[in-house]
């Protein structure tokens, strides 16, 4: 009796083990797959034609819409590390800043992790090339880069460069020339009033903005034009007097907050706004 019970137990344990291991194997169905936690990298990969290589993404990796059918393993600043490891991806792409910590953690598990952060158009081109090399999708890469470069070259630059204040948060957070947005402002023909400062992001002083007297304000801080033009002391700012305030209503915010092929739209829009300013100067 006892013997048969023991053998039954052994059979059960082995059976359960087999069942469990087959479950784990299911997770591993795509050993060639990659995991992307950075929304902009996800978008670049899709544009390179590698959407089917992605086996997991994060919540904000939402473009193109087909991306949203892929399994999500967290939001921008926290991800389910256990799930990522269970998926056994061959490669993981992360962003910088908040995602810096997954980079360290995931690398410790022996998975190749690539951190992508573009702080200028030049580094964006390099990164597209790097992603394409990693995924062996190089044909499409040169096409993407050439078309962006073409758009960049075909811009007409304003002869009077407007001074630009770019706002990313209502407490006057802004960017400098050493950020991607800052570079887009330069390439579109503007002069960032905080461009020369030696870090990529800062909380500006209210009085510094008023004193710099920008000609164009691009405020992607979810403030309305009215709210911005009614700020105390801002009535004397050129951009406010001439109504050159552009907000999230005027541009798809993802085209400038992400460094992606779509960013060419932002570049063209900024250039158009700066040219509009230029026209009033000649008259």
């Amino acid at each position, binding site marked *: 009796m006892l013997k048969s019970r023991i053998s039954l137990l052994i059979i059960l344990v082995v059976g359960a083990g087999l069942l469990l291991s087959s479950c784990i194997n299911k997770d591993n169905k795509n050993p060639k797959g990659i995991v992307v936690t950075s929304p902009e990298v996800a978008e670049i990969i899709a544009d390179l034609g590698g959407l089917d290589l992605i086996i997991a993404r994060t919540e904000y990796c939402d473009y193109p819409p087909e991306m949203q059918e892929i399994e999500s393993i967290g939001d921008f600043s926290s991800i389910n590390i256990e799930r990522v490891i269970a998926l056994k991806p061959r490669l993981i792409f992360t962003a910088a800043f908040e995602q810096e910590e997954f980079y360290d953690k995931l690398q410790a598990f022996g998975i190749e992790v690539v951190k992508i952060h573009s702080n200028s158009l030049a580094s964006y081109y390099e990164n597209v090339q790097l992603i394409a090399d990693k995924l062996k999708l190089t044909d499409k890469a040169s096409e993407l880069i050439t078309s962006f470069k073409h758009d960049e070259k075909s811009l007409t630059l304003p002869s009077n460069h407007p001074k630009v204040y770019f706002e990313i948060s*209502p407490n006057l957070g802004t960017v400098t020339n050493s950020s991607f947005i800052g570079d887009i402002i330069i390439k579109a023909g503007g002069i960032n009033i905080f461009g020369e400062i030696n870090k990529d992001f800062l909380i500006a002083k209210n*009085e510094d903005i008023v004193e710099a007297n920008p000609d164009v304000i691009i405020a992607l801080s979810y403030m309305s034009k009215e709210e911005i033009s*009614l700020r*105390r*002391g801002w009535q004397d700012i050129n951009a406010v007097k001439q109504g050159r305030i552009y907000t999230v209503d005027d541009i798809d915010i993802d085209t400038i907050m992400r460094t992606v092929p779509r960013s060419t739209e932002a570049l063209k829009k900024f250039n158009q706004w700066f040219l509009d300013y230029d026209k009033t100067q000649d008259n």
Partner: protein
Amino acid sequence: MTKHKIINTYLGLGFLLLAVSFLYLYYKVPSTEILVAIRLPRFILTLLTGVVLASVGNIYQMLLNNPLAEPYILGTSSGSALFSITAYIMGFTYLMPLFGFAGAVLAMTLVWFIAKTGSGINTVKLILSGIIVSMICSAIISLYIYLFPNQITIIMGTLMGSLNHVFTNLEYYIFLALVAISILLLTYLYFLSNSLNIISTGELTAHSLGVDTAKIRKQIFVITSILIAIVTSYAGIIGFVGLIIPHIVRMICGDNLRNNYFITMIIGGIFLILCDFVAYHISPFGELPVGIITTIIGSFFFISILRKRN
């Protein structure tokens, strides 16, 4: 303190306040327009915040007979911050002080309810429940960062405390009206200081001297909640001022609230103006969160006074 000494103290403090205000307003100011439109509102906000935090801290410490009592530790600041951020996220920017008041009252009531025992208020329990309520509110505020990532800088600004509120004209006039209300409430609190002195000697004594402790507590509870709500809805949670300024003043001027009430107020204002001055000018571009400076300067100053007293 003798009358003569008190007059001298007030004269000295008045002079110091003037000097500090002048420095704050005029140091490297680019133009008169900027002085009036941008620096003056910030100056008033900073002064009011320092004054309110120090006086409310002072009153809490007396009322509860507990050296740790202050608006942040008792949960009032956090409750108020949570509700005013909620108002902001819902798009009711102008209603932030009102929501803040509701939050402050709610947090205080909750703290009171948890700490209440049969015979009255247990002050140790009060501080503990204050810390718990404060943590709950901060946790919910942190949760907002995940739910509303677009608002992250405003939420962080509230949590860390910052005086760089950008006013529109309408907002500024509403704020000035609230400043007037605050001055009235602070004056009213002064007239309660005699009763508070008596309450701080113990509930029994107070009753036998004919002080209605329950009524006074309720009044103070509502008035301080309004004051804290006004301040936190504009400046967020600035810790430490409410805790250390009253202690420093009491070490120098003694425990009598009638004597130290206005001194605490003025020193609170001077202290925060100085801290914000440093936070504003320490870096050639941008600014630091003022909470960092209040904690660093305040704690060193506090330690040195504490050591001297020993």
